[in-house]
């Protein structure tokens, strides 16, 4: 599902990071660990096609991301990769439902209210469906972010420090949700984190030096 080969990224200050090759099977769940400064977020952006590597290749569902044009890459990402960020951001002027609809339409799908309702149900926040996102608590926001990452049934879900802003209780809940939902959708899950609380939950680990 997800493969990298000889991935290298050079920052503007000429600092170069070489990443180990990764190979994740379909439906597997991975933890990407490393101290800050080891390029965790950079790697996640490279995997998600948000940033282009100077060297090496990223394959998602056997598609090499670098071979796609900018617009095609945006479309591909929208359809096949769901990303959850550390801070959940939304389109401020829209409600929870509208944000999820936007994710559907931007990926080129038509809006599917049933899918949205079902997801929010599973994540136990269906009562917030018509609320503005800025009126939700941190934990609720992170759940909506998970719903948004899942809404187009992507094959790959990337999460960048999804729990670092959450307390223990919320942390466990969010990880549980990510894990079960990814499994139910049959999606590959890669979580980038330095949060040691998560180590217990996952068997597969990639450690960046």
């Amino acid at each position, binding site marked *: 599902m997800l493969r990298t080969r000889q991935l290298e990224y050079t920052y503007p200050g000429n600092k170069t990071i070489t990443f180990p090759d990764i190979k994740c099977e379909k439906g597997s769940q991975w933890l990407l660990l490393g101290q800050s400064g080891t390029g965790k977020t950079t790697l996640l*952006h490279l995997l998600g096609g948000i940033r282009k590597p100077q060297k090496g290749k990223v394959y998602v569902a056997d598609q090499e991301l670098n071979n796609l044009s900018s617009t095609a890459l*945006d479309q591909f*990402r929208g359809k096949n990769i769901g990303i959850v960020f550390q801070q959940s*951001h939304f*389109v*401020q*002027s*829209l409600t929870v439902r509208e944000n999820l609809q936007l994710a559907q339409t*931007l990926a080129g799908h038509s809006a599917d209210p049933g899918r949205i309702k079902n997801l929010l149900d599973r994540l136990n926040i269906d009562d917030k469906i018509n609320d503005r996102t800025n009126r939700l608590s941190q934990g609720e926001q992170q759940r909506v972010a998970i719903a948004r990452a899942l809404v187009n049934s992507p094959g790959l879900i990337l999460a960048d420090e999804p729990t670092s802003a959450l307390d223990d209780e919320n942390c466990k809940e969010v990880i549980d949700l990510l894990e079960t939902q990814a499994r139910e959708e049959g999606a590959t899950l890669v979580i980038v984190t330095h949060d040691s609380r998560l180590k217990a939950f996952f068997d597969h680990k990639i450690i960046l030096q």
Partner: protein
Amino acid sequence: MNPLTLSWKNQKDRPLQMLLTLLLFGLGVGLIALLISLNTQLDEKFKNNLAGIDLVIGAKGSPLQMILSSMYHIDAPTGNISIKEVKPFFNPKHPLIKLAVPMSLGDSYKSFRIIGTTHEYVDSIFKEKVASGKLWEGLYEVTIGATVASKTNLKIGDQFHSSHGFADDGINTHDHGDGFKVVGILNKSNTVLDQLILTNTQSVWAVHDHEAEEKKAPAAATEEKENDHATGQEDHTDHDHSAHDHTDHAGHDHDAHDHSAHQAAAPIIKPLTDYPDKDITTLLIRYRNKKDWRSLNMPRSINENTDLQAASPAIEMNRLYSMMGVGTDALRNLALIIVIVSGLSIFISLFSSLKDRKYELALMRVMGASRNYLFFLIILEGLLFAILGYLLGLFLCHSGMALLSGYLEEAYQYEFSGWRFFKEELWLLGGSLVIGFIAALIPAFQAYRTDISETLTTY
């Protein structure tokens, strides 16, 4: 979720900013549209009322004032001229003059002017006909314009009393012995004719003579005009105008009495040239041949060699336009500045909102939106401002014009419509869209260039 809904929701999320920007844009557009509407309608009215009049002859004074008062019935007249001075112009065999129509500005009724003239004013100058009744014939008979009829509810057979001057302040309402009697109502012509009460010159004289005599010592008046006038005078004093009951005419003997007396005193069939010592206000002239050099010389020779003043309406109106033009130009420039500032405010509004929404935009890219989509989205937001501002502007303009039209009608003696639309307003829409587009261009380009990865890591 289509881009238009998204732009709308984005803007609606900042209602104050949006309101301010829209108001500014609407004011600019509205002011320009108002100027267009006013200018076009004024221009039309002035042109309609030129009515093929080549020259106006009247008393010395301001030529523009003379034109405005005798052709457009806006200003006060410059004074009077005596018939013997203008007698040659009435000669039907005059080599240069095809038509000479006398105008005597009399009193007014409910702020509509009463004009003493000849039938040629209606037949030959405006080429209009009566809608009902007939043109005036006898003394005190009037034919009224369509607007006069609708605004005053005067009907054929009604009688009314005029007031001095043109202001209807209710103080100067006098009983001039007799009332005028409506004998006809003119077709609606969209010219100044709609706003006039027309009668013959002799009626205007009669009203004023009557009044002049009343002002003299009562003794002298009675001596001069024998007992007929004395009765009129007596009637006048005990005649309660407001309590005047029209159905009560039979019992009120003065009406029938006075009428016959006046008609006996002034048989009005006689041409004006038979009254060399009487005055009229102006003479409207149409040349036989406009291009004849003698016609072209006529105004100058009148102005230089006589106590009269001659002025060409076309020239004077052009002069007025060029004078007013400075004002309208200034207003138009002001409106343009407002529109440009509002364009700037669209720009600032989008630009500052983009700062707050930078992460949002990066996020939308992550969700599958292309660079072009974001560019298009921001442009759409600019155009949305422009269209809404334009609509607000048109609304302001037309409702403002509808409100103004009452005041303008009083000031210019014309009806203005607030709900007429002009093709220039389509140009205005085009202009608004261009401004909205230009204002959104830089923010849109910024959105286009958003670096997703950097934005997502920095914020």
